[in-house]
């Protein structure tokens, strides 16, 4: 049992911390969010130069072969600084290719992802899916020579307009909700039949609704077994969930730091408002939320890296996401309340942290979804 970071993890943590402090101050973020693209190519390249794009990819594809634990410091820094560049979205899609792709697909796509010149996104969510990963209604109709024709609507795909290639989940058989019959298909974003509507999300990130209207993909664009992709999707979503838990820890820390600072500086009735016990105890509870969230994020990241037993792994991840989602809601709401009116203001970073925490609470499944899953995976 030890909680020490390895030398590599320490160096990476130090360099990402330096990067966000120097190059991702809150005003810079504000400019990026307001820009037409909603992200910065310069920032993306700088992150790639730090090795972040390669971090989680396998060594034989130009990556560093890192796991979720190696990415904890990165995710916490992204959470603290509210980085809007789609690092997690691209990392998730990269995992689908790394784990599910054949050798040619991996070598075609991943070296570019690793050096930051190619971006991927996972187009999965649909209107009626809520948080059920098996709820895929988009159709993949088999054509000649292993080709498929895709038709359907994907909703709020993270970073969809900022990537080169979409990984689209679509159904080769069965009805939405059934575990069998889901496949993954590589679709170039500019391919005929693909249209997008760009979306501005609550947390300042970008996404897009993606309409697929008779999109033709050839046999070499099928990722893994057509019809049997659900276990892969679930594993990668668990991996992503563990990572977003670590991001939440950074965002919670940032909210708590801002709130504590405010309690010490804001004066009313002739004293700092932090002198009032009613507020002190609430601040203490927020500090406890941070530690409990940090513990569960660590547990989830360690589980997706090291727990071979699939059911146990999934159960730990769901447990973590329940605790993180609860902490996200409590900390975000209390941070605004303890700031008072100024906390509502767009000018303050804490109101943006509130928005990101609100999003994280639902991302990859909300507390209710994961509570049900946690129990279903073995009481």
């Amino acid at each position: 049992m030890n909680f020490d970071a390895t030398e590599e993890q320490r160096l990476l943590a130090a360099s990402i911390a330096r990067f966000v402090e120097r190059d991702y101050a809150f005003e810079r973020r504000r400019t990026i969010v307001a820009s037409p693209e909603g992200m910065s190519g310069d920032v993306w390249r700088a992150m790639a130069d730090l090795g972040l794009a390669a971090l989680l990819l396998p060594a034989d594809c130009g990556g560093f072969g890192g796991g979720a634990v190696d990415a904890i410091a990165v995710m916490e820094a992204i959470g603290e600084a509210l980085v809007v560049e789609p690092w997690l979205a691209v990392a998730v899609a990269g995992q689908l290719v790394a784990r599910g792709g054949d050798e040619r697909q991996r070598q075609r796509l991943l070296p570019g992802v690793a050096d930051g010149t190619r971006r991927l996104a996972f187009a999965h969510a649909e209107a009626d899916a809520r948080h059920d990963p098996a709820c895929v209604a988009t159709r993949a109709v088999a054509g000649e020579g292993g080709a498929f024709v895709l038709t359907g609507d994907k909703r709020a795909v993270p970073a969809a307009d900022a990537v080169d290639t979409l990984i689209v989940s679509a159904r080769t058989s069965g009805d939405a909700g059934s575990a069998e019959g889901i496949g993954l298909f590589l679709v170039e974003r500019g391919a005929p039949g693909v249209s997008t509507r760009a979306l501005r999300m609550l947390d300042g990130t970008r996404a897009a609704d993606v309409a697929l209207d008779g999109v033709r993909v050839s046999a070499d664009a099928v990722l893994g077994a057509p019809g049997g992709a659900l276990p892969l999707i679930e594993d990668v979503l668990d991996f992503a969930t563990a990572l977003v838990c670590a991001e939440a820890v950074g965002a919670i820390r940032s909210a708590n730091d801002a709130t504590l600072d405010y309690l010490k500086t804001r004066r009313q009735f002739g004293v700092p408002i932090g002198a009032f016990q009613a507020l002190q105890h609430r601040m203490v509870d927020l500090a406890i939320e941070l530690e409990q969230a940090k513990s569960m994020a660590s547990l989830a990241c360690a589980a997706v890296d090291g727990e071979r037993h699939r059911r146990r792994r999934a159960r730990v991840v769901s447990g973590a996401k329940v605790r993180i989602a609860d902490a996200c809601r409590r900390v975000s709401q209390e941070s605004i309340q303890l700031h008072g009116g100024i906390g509502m203001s767009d000018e303050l970073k804490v109101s943006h942290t509130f928005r990101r925490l609100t999003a994280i609470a639902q991302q990859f499944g909300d507390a209710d979804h994961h509570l049900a899953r946690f129990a279903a995976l073995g009481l």
Partner: protein
Amino acid sequence: MNLDYSADERAFRDDVRGWLRDHLPRALRDKVVSYAHLTRDDLLAWHRVLAAQGWIAPAWPAEWGGTDWNVVQRYIFEEECGYAGAPPLVPFGLTMCAAVLLKFGTDAQKARFLPRIYRGDDFWCQGYSEPNSGSDLASLRTSAVRRGDRYVVNGQKIWTTMAHMADWIFCLVRTDASLERKQDGISFLLIDMRTPGITVRPLILMDGGHEVNEVFFDDVEVPVDQRVFDEGKGWTVAKYLLGHERMNTARIGTSKRELEHLKAFAAAQRKDGRPLTDDPRFRDKLSRLEIELMALEITNLRFLDRLRGGASPGADVSMLKIKGTEIQQMLTELMLDAAGPLAQAVASVDGAPLADETLAALAPRYCNMRKTTIYAGSNEIQRNIIAKQALGLG
């Protein structure tokens, strides 16, 4: 980062676990897991088994019988004992009075008291709270007036756990009431409970049990050599004790055992013809409780990791007490809810045993465990400590 125990730590845990399997008397374990009342003889019986093995006081220096285990081993030992269903070790002598003697006691005091504590010859209690001094402990008024080589003690202590079983009591008393700061003029005395002038009166709690008392001191004479540390410096001793050994307050092992019991118990109850654990309302409460405990176990290990690195645990270690006791209470609350209305029958009128004594123990247990967020520095006091010392508020 590796959240699993190392091979050495696992081997140690397996040793402890194996030893407990062989040496924890079945009858004692059954009493503990069924929430039965433990007598002084029960508590001392287990104390002596551990003392014979040399494991009764792991944290003491080796010269007084300590085991030289590191903080992780000590934690593993405590958690395994809790998980196995061993009776709790009464802390007043072993962890509290002993810690004070080891830090502040004279050689003569150590030689006089420590071996007896180790062997279980003396049963100790703690004379801290008074009727008007609870969380505001430093306002205490029990007085000790020096007369020659003795103090004459007058006053009253309250909520004194196990005073009715105790041979000795350690007390905070006021030796000088003329000082401006209430923390000044307090002294730390060790008092033989058989001294004339001491009266113990039971306080029966809402669970019907007798574990706390009022203790009255009426011209009780205490030899000066039973004062620990300087006269008037008792608050230094008290503060040291408050900060001491706060690592085992989360009681993870005990709560894990009780959670397993709760799950099995709830699964055996029926609601609308199905196991209670299928009811989403109950199930969600149970799941959230388990998740909180999972998180607290890791949080506890992270504090332990800090200690092992040589750092002090820090004031925020109080969160282990806050969260640990909230979990302990929720376990008893869900047991009560799982049992349903039948748990309201707590005893037979004629005193004959009920068909299911464990069921009858659940409601009193729920009542009794309300104490955990109040004792040992209420959870509000713990929040004050974190706010002031860890967060810098105040």
